[in-house]
Structures are given as structure tokens and as C-alpha cells.
């Protein structure tokens, strides 16, 4: 045999042996299992001790079982956080539908584009630095495994107390490549995007898309996150309890102030800076109706938001194992119902003589906004009451803002989110009943409001509202004034009258559908100025 011949024989044998071992390794385990598992249609026999990783398969030690239990607990909590986060993301569609339904057909492409684009814009700003500012100093993520790498909070010290201002860990999530942080990021991001989309309603039908685009970067980077840090990131509003004995500090379970009041205040400032739509107000200051073009869109959008709120509120436990989620969900649902009914009845019997569909929607949303802060801390009866008051409040707020403040809010965003966001946290300060929240914000004992023995809680809520209005109001004013100086906020009057779709977006929202005169600007109130250009107020 030649040397090459011998090598070839060894090679052939070697390959045959390897192949044989490989085949055996496939077949033998199958043969071993072949007698264990029949098909299991009921599921009663699927998932047993064999599924617990153990040194001895099927006979785990107590330690191995404990490890699996801990892992499962965190898994339930993380799944809960993620799936409820997905529900909240879907609320973006709800906002888009409501706002577009309550505004005119000639502007649908523009209104929809704003509601669409705010989602990625807000998200990227939050990813860039917003999340770091808001949660960079959060500390341990207790419900999802306790990772504590978000540990840098910028703090100032006054009167011997610490005042957390903003975080500094997690820019672009760098250095925080941890599953709990990622889950937290997603969940908190969709909340931020809820805030971000609220002002597009108050500022619809005359806001320049370029100005909106620039705003979109500011809301996720500095507007929302800084106040958010003060309440949810371990900042000074949360510490009002530890520092000054004011209840458990400013408590806001799912964001009546952090999300909704913030959005409402930005909308208020923005709508005020923009000025009213052409034709909204007559020379004597009396308002004109500018009817929206699709009640079906508004109604469906409201249902989408109500559905998403089942993620918004119960999800804020960040823990599927915290069974208070059942109470949170029911409180949320009840407040939405009383809000809707109260608003409808108030319109039908008191303010006008018709049950206005768009106000029904505003009423349900107002109830949802108001219950967002107290949902984990109140009983069902008080949840109904909070929603009922919200329903009346939103109608009165719409009238007040339109007729007294003379600020044009096409969809009622300021009334729904701003006014009822404030009412929400104040109602927590009144009705929190002490059945939940032990240790909240580092203060021992459960959360109680004024009517259950803790007046300091109401004071903390008031301070939180004030801080929001001042900070958000001031910063959004600066932002809008900055944008005004650089590119301008408002579209040209002729663009506004003919519809924003083609000049701003390049395409009509509805092609092949003839728009009728209800989509036009109310003609009798146009005041020609100079060469036939109607005047438009803008500040």
C-alpha cells in the first residue's frame, strides 16, 4: 500500500466513525424519549419538573427550583411590561383617528402625518438622551431582576435636602445593555410618545409641518423627560415625602401629570403662540363652529385609546405578579364610563340640547386621563366619581378655553389632557384610600389622600401640578419662540384656507372625493386685509 493509499483508508474509516457517532447521537436520545410522551391534547401533562433545569434531569434541588421560580417571576413581570407597552403604542393610532376625525377633510394628510411622525421622532429623541435624563438615576429595577446600573442622578443640595434634577446614565442606552433596562425603555418610551402627540391636536390645521418636526425633537429630549425624572426617576417631586413629610411625595401612578398634564400644557402654550384658526373668532370675539369631518374616526379612535389605556394604567405596575392590576384595570374602565356619560348628559341637558358625539369622546378620554394617576390607589366607587367629575370638567373647560381664554383648540386636547391631568393627581391627593402603595417613594405605609387621613399628600400633588405648569409652560414657550424665530410656526393664510395637504405634504389626504363647503373656512368672518389677504392672528 502506498502512503497515500494508507492515508485514504484511515480517512475513510475516520469519516465513517464520525458519521456513525453522529447518527447514534441523534437516534439514541429519541429512542430514550420514545416511551415518555404521548401527545397531550389537554395540556395537563405538559410542563413538569423536567422543564426545570437541574443537574439531575427531572429531580431538581430546592435551590434549582427557587432559581426557576425567581426567573419565572421576573419573566411574568417583563412580559407584562412589554405587552402592556405594545398596547400603549397602539394608542398612537387612536390619537391619529380622534384628531383627524375632529378636524377638516382638507387637512387630513397633514394632521395624520403629524400624528404618524411624532412616534419615531419622540422615540429617537428619547433614545438619544430623554431616557437617560429621565431614568439615568432610577436605581434598581426591582420588578424585573434588580439591575441597578441606572445610578447617576444629578442632584442639588438645599436646606440639607437632596433635590434630584435629572439622570445621566443610558444615553443611547449605552452601558445599559440589560434586558430589564430595555424593557423599561420600551415601556417608558410609549408613555413619552403619548405626551408628544397631544399638542398636535391643539395645534392642528395651522401648524407648519417643519415647525412640528423641530418640536418633535424637543419633546422627547428635554420637555417630557426632565419633569418625568422629578416624578418617576427619583427626582425632587418624588422626594417631597422623604424630604418634607408631604405624604409619599408627588405620586402619579401612570401619568396624569407626567404624561397628560405635560401634553396639555405644551398644547396650551403652542395653541396660544400659534393663534386661532382663520374664521374661528369673529371681530367681537364670539367663536364659530368649525366642524370636524368624521365622527366615525373620532369614535373609533376613542375606543382604540380606551383599549390602549388597559396597557397604560395596569401596565404601570411593571409587574404582572402585582395583582393590584385587576383593581387598576377596573378603576380605569369605570372612570371611562362615568366620564363619557357625564359629559354627554352635561351637554345634552345643561350646555346645549343635543348629546354631542365629539364631547362624548372627550368625556370618556377625560375620565381616563383623570383616573390615570389615582387608579391604583382608590376604590371603585371613587373611581366612578373621579370619572364623573372629569366628564363635567372637560365640557366646562372646553367652553372656558374657547370662549373666555379665546384659545382655539380644535380637538379639546387642552381640556382633556391638561385640565383633567391636573384633576387626576389632585383626586389622588383626595381619594387615595390606603389599600396600596406601601413604601412608595421610600415612605413607609400605604398611600392615603386627604379624605383618608393624609392632607400632606394633597399638598404634594399641588406642588407637582405647579412645577409642571411652570417648567413645561416656560420651556415649551421658549421652544416655540425659538422655532418662530428660525422657521416660523404658522402656515401662510392662503395655505390655511385652501387646506394644508397639498402645500405642506404634496398630496391631498382624500383623492377622488369631492370636499364640500363644510371643509371650507367660515366665509363671513374673513376680513380682507390689503390685497385680499385675510388677516390671521399669530403671536
Amino acid at each position, binding site marked *: 500500500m502506498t502512503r497515500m493509499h494508507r492515508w485514504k483508508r484511515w480517512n475513510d474509516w475516520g469519516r465513517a466513525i464520525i458519521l456513525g457517532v453522529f447518527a447514534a447521537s441523534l437516534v439514541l436520545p429519541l429512542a430514550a424519549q420514545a416511551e415518555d410522551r404521548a401527545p397531550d391534547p389537554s395540556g395537563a401533562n405538559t410542563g413538569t419538573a423536567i422543564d426545570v433545569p437541574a443537574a439531575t434531569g427531572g429531580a431538581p434541588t430546592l435551590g434549582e427550583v427557587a432559581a426557576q421560580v425567581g426567573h419565572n417571576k421576573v419573566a411574568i413581570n417583563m412580559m407584562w411590561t412589554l405587552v402592556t407597552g405594545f398596547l400603549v403604542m397602539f394608542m398612537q393610532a387612536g390619537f391619529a383617528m380622534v384628531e383627524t376625525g375632529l378636524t377638516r377633510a382638507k387637512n387630513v394628510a397633514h394632521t395624520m402625518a403629524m400624528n404618524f411622525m411624532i412616534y419615531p421622532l419622540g422615540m429617537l429623541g428619547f433614545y438619544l438622551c430623554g431616557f437617560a435624563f429621565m431614568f439615568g438615576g432610577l436605581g434598581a429595577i426591582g420588578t424585573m431582576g434588580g439591575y441597578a446600573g441606572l445610578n447617576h442622578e444629578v442632584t442639588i443640595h438645599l436646606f440639607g435636602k437632596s433635590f434630584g434634577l435629572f439622570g445621566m446614565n443610558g444615553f443611547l442606552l449605552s452601558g445599559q445593555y440589560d434586558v430589564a433596562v430595555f424593557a423599561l425603555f420600551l415601556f417608558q418610551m410609549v408613555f413619552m410618545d403619548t405626551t408628544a402627540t397631544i399638542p398636535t391636536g391643539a395645534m392642528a390645521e395651522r401648524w407648519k409641518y417643519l415647525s412640528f418636526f423641530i418640536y418633535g425633537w424637543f419633546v422627547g429630549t428635554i420637555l417630557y423627560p426632565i419633569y418625568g425624572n422629578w416624578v418617576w426617576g427619583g427626582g425632587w417631586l418624588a422626594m417631597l415625602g422623604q424630604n418634607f413629610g408631604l405624604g409619599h411625595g408627588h405620586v402619579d401612578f401612570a401619568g396624569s401629570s407626567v404624561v397628560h398634564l405635560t401634553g396639555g400644557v405644551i398644547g396650551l402654550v403652542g395653541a396660544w403662540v400659534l393663534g386661532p384658526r382663520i374664521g374661528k373668532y369673529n371681530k367681537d370675539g364670539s*367663536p364659530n*363652529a368649525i*366642524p370636524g369631518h368624521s365622527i366615525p374616526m373620532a369614535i373609533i379612535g376613542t375606543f382604540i385609546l380606551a383599549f390602549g389605556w388597559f396597557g397604560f394604567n395596569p401596565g404601570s405596575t411593571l409587574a404582572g405578579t402585582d395583582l393590584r392590576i385587576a383593581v387598576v384595570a377596573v378603576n380605569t374602565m369605570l372612570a371611562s364610563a362615568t366620564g363619557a356619560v357625564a359629559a354627554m348628559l352635561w351637554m345634552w341637558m345643561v350646555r*346645549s340640547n*343635543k348629546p*354631542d358625539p365629539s364631547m362624548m369622546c372627550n368625556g370618556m378620554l377625560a375620565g381616563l386621563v383623570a383616573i390615570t394617576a389615582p387608579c391604583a390607589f382608590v376604590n371603585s366607587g371613587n373611581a366612578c366619581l373621579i370619572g364623573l367629575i372629569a366628564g363635567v370638567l372637560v365640557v366646562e373647560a372646553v367652553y372656558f378655553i*374657547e370662549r373666555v381664554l379665546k384659545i382655539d383648540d380644535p380637538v379639546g386636547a387642552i381640556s382633556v389632557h391638561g385640565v383633567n391631568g391636573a384633576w387626576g393627581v389632585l383626586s389622588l391627593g383626595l381619594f387615595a384610600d390606603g389599600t396600596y402603595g406601601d413604601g412608595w417613594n421610600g415612605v413607609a405605609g400605604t398611600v392615603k389622600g386627604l379624605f383618608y387621613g393624609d392632607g400632606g399628600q394633597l399638598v404634594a400633588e399641588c406642588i407637582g401640578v405647579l412645577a409642571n405648569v411652570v417648567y413645561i409652560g416656560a420651556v415649551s414657550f421658549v421652544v416655540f419662540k425659538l422655532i418662530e424665530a428660525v422657521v416660523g410656526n404658522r402656515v401662510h393664510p392662503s395655505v390655511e384656507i385652501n387646506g394644508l395637504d397639498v402645500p405642506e405634504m404634496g398630496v391631498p389626504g382624500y383623492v377622488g372625493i369631492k370636499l364640500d363647503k*363644510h371643509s371650507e373656512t367660515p366665509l363671513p368672518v374673513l376680513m380682507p386685509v390689503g390685497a385680499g389677504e385675510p388677516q390671521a392672528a399669530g403671536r
Partner: protein
Amino acid sequence: MKKLEVIIRPEKLEAVRQAMEAVGYPGITLTEAEGHGKQKGMTQQWRGETYCVPFLPKMKLEIVIADADLEKMIQAVTKAARTGAVGDGKIFVSDIRDVVRIRTGERGEQAI
């Protein structure tokens, strides 16, 4: 030849169309119109604000007939369209100089 512009309530469209057909004139041009005479407009409400829509939906039918059928047509249309309430509509009668059937080129009354 006479042209009739008939403005009626939208819900009377089918009745008037059938009346015209019964007189012997199945050919109609229909426009969806808005208008008002003495009838005041519609009042609507949006978020508590009442506003008046001065123009009400109407249907406008245009038909060209032979002179001989004028009275018969007016009677038939009026009977079909009348409800007795304000807003029943109007018939405007005008003279037509000529009619052309495009398919065949016929002119005059035989082209109606």
C-alpha cells in the same frame, strides 16, 4: 321645445322620475344641488356652538320636452313632488332653440 329645471326635495327624486317617465320622457339630467328660497337653512351644533347651514340639499332635474307636453309634465311633476310644506321646490320653464342627438345628428323635436 321647452326646458324644465325642476328643483325638488331629495326624497322626492324617485317619485318625480317615475312621473316624468309616465308622461313619456325617460331622459333626465340630474344634479345634486343646494339651495333655499324662503325656507330657512338647517341649524347644526358642534361642541356646543350652534351654526346655521343656509343651504339645504336639493335635487335638480333638467329635462327638455315638446311644447305640447308642457302642461301635462308640469301637472305630473307638481303632483309627485308636492308635500305642502315650505321647501317643496320650483320648476323653471325656458325656451329651447334647438336639440341635437349626438349619436345620429337628428335635430329639433325628434331629437328629444
